[in-house]
């Protein structure tokens, strides 16, 4: 076992939430008892980040991601528990590392580099690279207060990645800046991964987690909800978000008709999770009516890992109707040929009224299957291709 680069043990962070925060002594004296309630932004958070791995921190707004990142960076001190890190940390929190608006870009680079632990001579050597990376050659000698937010972030990122950190903490930074720069940052992050540095990422962009991270942690209301394989954690995150967003949850409905069982299997009838492009997939749903319901619609939908809606249909569109639905039924949707090259697909199944005014029961993305990417099939979709050659 190697020593983890970051070890977070039982960390909790309590914030005081003042109804109206007394920022002056007078207020403090006048209001004899200050009305403050404690608010735990983090509680019992434990995780380890092995050296050289890339961890994605995801979670809804206010779940404590940034707080955790700041605690790892040492900017905030935990109320309880402890954090142990090894090696130099460069943290990139949203919108620029601490720059002083009155100083020029050049002066700020030196100031920042020294805060990140570089000597003047070392910074001298790196200076041109930093400016080049940030693409700010023309503006490096003007005051930072005249910079756009994009320039700000670029310079911050450039400094942080050039100071040779063992641990890089990134908070939503990649969301800023134009596409070209984002790509550059991502390339740099990849290079860091190859060099065996440890990276912790906070992001809303779930696809970045899937692209870049080899581990992920889901935070919700200050506690770790899930950690491990990014695909799994991202899925949990999406379920969580859906519970928040949707009127009905991921397993909800009026239950006049109930989804009893859902099965996914291949053409051979055997239950499966892995398929190859072009194969057939059967989605089988067992339904039970608790009261007779007229003209229900049974549907399914597929979402990919980016949570984009890929495909869906229902019995009505397939030309089949239930005038009155009573008792138990087994329905099957057969997808005759999978048009996907690779990835994980999440299956939503549901029963609802024709005008969708009533949802009887829905299982939101509770099921999934993988399509195995064949190296011989690059691209996004699977198109069966015939190849022919003949002498002319």
């Amino acid at each position, binding site marked *: 076992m190697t020593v983890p680069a970051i070890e977070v043990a039982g960390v909790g962070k309590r914030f005081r939430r003042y109804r109206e925060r007394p920022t002056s002594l007078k207020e403090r004296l006048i209001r004899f008892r200050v009305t403050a309630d404690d608010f735990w932004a983090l509680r019992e958070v434990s995780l380890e980040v092995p050296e050289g791995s890339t961890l994605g921190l995801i979670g809804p707004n206010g779940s404590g991601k940034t707080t955790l990142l700041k605690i790892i960076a040492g900017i905030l001190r935990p109320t309880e528990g402890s954090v142990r890190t090894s090696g130099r940390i460069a943290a990139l929190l949203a919108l620029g590392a601490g720059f002083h608006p*009155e100083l020029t870009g050049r002066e700020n680079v030196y100031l920042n580099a020294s805060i990140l632990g570089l000597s003047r001579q070392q910074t001298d050597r790196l200076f041109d690279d930093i400016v080049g990376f940030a693409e700010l050659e023309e503006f490096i000698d003007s005051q930072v207060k005249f910079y756009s937010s994009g320039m700000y972030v670029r310079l911050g990122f450039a400094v942080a990645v050039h100071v040779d950190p063992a641990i890089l903490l990134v908070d939503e930074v990649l969301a800023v800046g134009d596409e070209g720069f984002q790509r550059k940052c991502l390339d740099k992050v990849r290079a860091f991964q190859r060099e065996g540095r440890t990276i912790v990422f906070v992001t809303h962009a779930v696809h970045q987690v899937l692209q870049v991270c080899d581990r992920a942690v889901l935070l919700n209301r200050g506690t770790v909800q899930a950690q491990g394989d990014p695909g799994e954690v991202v899925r949990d995150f999406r379920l969580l978000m859906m519970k928040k967003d949707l009127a009905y949850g991921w397993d909800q409905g009026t239950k006049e008709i109930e989804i009893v069982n859902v099965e996914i299997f291949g053409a051979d009838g055997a239950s499966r999770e892995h398929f190859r492009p072009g194969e057939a997939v059967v989605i089988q749903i067992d339904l039970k009516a608790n009261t007779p319901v007229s003209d229900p619609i049974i549907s399914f939908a597929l979402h990919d890992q980016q949570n984009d809606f890929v495909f869906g249909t229902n019995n009505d569109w397939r030309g089949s109707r239930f005038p009155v639905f009573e008792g138990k039924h087994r329905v099957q949707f057969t997808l005759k040929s999978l048009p996907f090259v690779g990835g994980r697909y999440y299956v939503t199944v549901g029963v609802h009224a024709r005008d969708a005014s009533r949802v009887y029961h829905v299982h939101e993305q509770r099921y999934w299957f993988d399509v195995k990417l064949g190296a011989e099939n690059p691209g996004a979709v699977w198109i069966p291709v015939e190849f022919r050659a003949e002498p002319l």
Partner: protein
Amino acid sequence: MRRLRELASSREILANLVRKEVKVKYKSSVLGALWSMLNPVLYLAVFTLVFSVVLRNDIRDFPVYLLSGLLAWNLFSTSLSLASRSVVDNANLVTKVYFPREILPLSSVGTALVDFGLQALVLVAFMVTSGYDFTRIDLLLLPLSMFALLAFTSALGMWVAGLNVRYRDTQHLLNLSLLAWFWVTPIVYPSGFVYTELSSREFLGIRLFDLYLANPMASVVMGFQRALYGTVSYPVEGGREVFVLAPVSLGWLALLIGGVAVGSLLLLFLAWRTFFHLSGDFAEEL
């Protein structure tokens, strides 16, 4: 101890922060560093007017006397004013990157030291014109006084810096206190006068002059004056003697300032602990 080592490894940050402060201070100003030198000159003009012309209370080589105390005082008050705002003004650093937060109030002291250096040029100029003897033994008091001053200033600096994050009125309170403090410290009036007035009176059995010396800045400033001005008393016509400085022995004064230094170090230790404790929450309170 560990924190001390961490602090030592962050010297570069300290230097850069001081550089930053100085740069920011004089950015977009035409006269730049001259402003720092103008401050004591202006004080000198005002107090010369008040004492020599209005009050007719001549002190020999008044510029040297005034500046030797004033410079020490300026170092103290500038440090504290800057320190009280140091964490708040550097919010964008504090909330974005980690570094030992103690550096912020210390950089305020450093910035004030740069000012001190500039103002010292003015003082030295006056000392040279007044024919000061640079080989005097009293000069040995200077490093000790400086050390005590820096320790005391750093301790209070950390304290106000930390407090001001939560209670912004610290800085206002500080400015008022500094004003009052200035006048209970023998800077514009001669400590010799105070000595003559207070050493014969008692309050609850304590010599009033000793009570006066309870102000650490009084001892420190007296140290600076003794070292740089040096003339304790001189005879005037009528056989009387005018005491400019308190007629205490050099050794006694050194002991006194040494005591201040030791006390300040202790205070610094405590202030540091308080500051460190408070600093864990800086990022969220800004």
